[in-house]
């Protein structure tokens, strides 16, 4: 491995491409997964992908507020995960299943 490879910088486009790829994998997971918890995990994956874009642009413009926005997204994601998983527990108590195909009515 030569020294030029060690010194080389990474274009920020690559970070953005990685972010877009992760986001699309999250969307695909949302579409193909049949378990309520895994569907929820795919949403978390999409949130993480968008966070990577935020951090990349914060690095590009030298803006601290971009990073702070990611911090707020993390806080909201934590709140969302707590409430979402509580809802999943409540749904499981009412239906005794986690398959999204069988949870298709709002009323019990």
């Amino acid at each position, binding site marked *: 491995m030569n020294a030029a490879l060690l010194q080389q910088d990474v274009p920020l486009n690559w970070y953005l491409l990685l972010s*877009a790829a992760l986001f699309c*994998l999250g969307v695909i997971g949302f579409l193909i997964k049949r378990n309520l918890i895994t569907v929820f995990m795919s949403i978390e994956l999409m949130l*993480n992908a968008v966070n990577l874009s935020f951090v990349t642009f914060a690095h590009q413009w030298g803006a601290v507020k971009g990073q702070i926005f990611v911090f707020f997204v993390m806080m909201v994601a934590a709140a969302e995960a707590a409430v979402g998983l509580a809802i999943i527990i409540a749904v499981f108590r009412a239906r005794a299943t986690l398959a999204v195909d069988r949870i298709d009515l709002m009323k019990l």
Partner: protein
Amino acid sequence: MHLILFLIFAVFCLAGAVNLLLQSHPINSALSLIVVMTSLAVLYLLLGAEFLAAAQVIVYAGAIMVLFTFVVMLLNAGREEQTRGSIAAKTVGFPAVVAILAVLASVILKAQGLGTASLVNGITSTVEVSKVLFTDLLLPFEVTSVLVLIAILGAVALASRGNGDQGRTVSK
């Protein structure tokens, strides 16, 4: 060095995300999501976001994923059943995903004026982040703390209601 670290952890990220889709047991999906989130923390560090890298490990890979694995074990979630899936997902969803990825990739690849990231420049210290967070953005920060408090109350109310009803019917 930056290039090598980026490639290693980008591959980890993508492999974890693909593994999340391929695994049929939720606990395997949760573990691959932890791999994705920890690799993302390293990428944040490469982009100079020290505080966010630590917060990513603690909040996402730590707290949120512990919550996920806890719920998976609590509900005894087994392998997911294979169904045909919805027609809307096949006819609209997957073409839309491909279209979104194509549009995003073409825009990103055509973008001019984006810089490069190296190991030495552009490191944002926690001091800079907290100076802005606790002066300019103090109100949003406090509102977030109220939001988290409400979320805790909501989670407790949602998760404990069924149990309470059950207890009442049993005591009758």
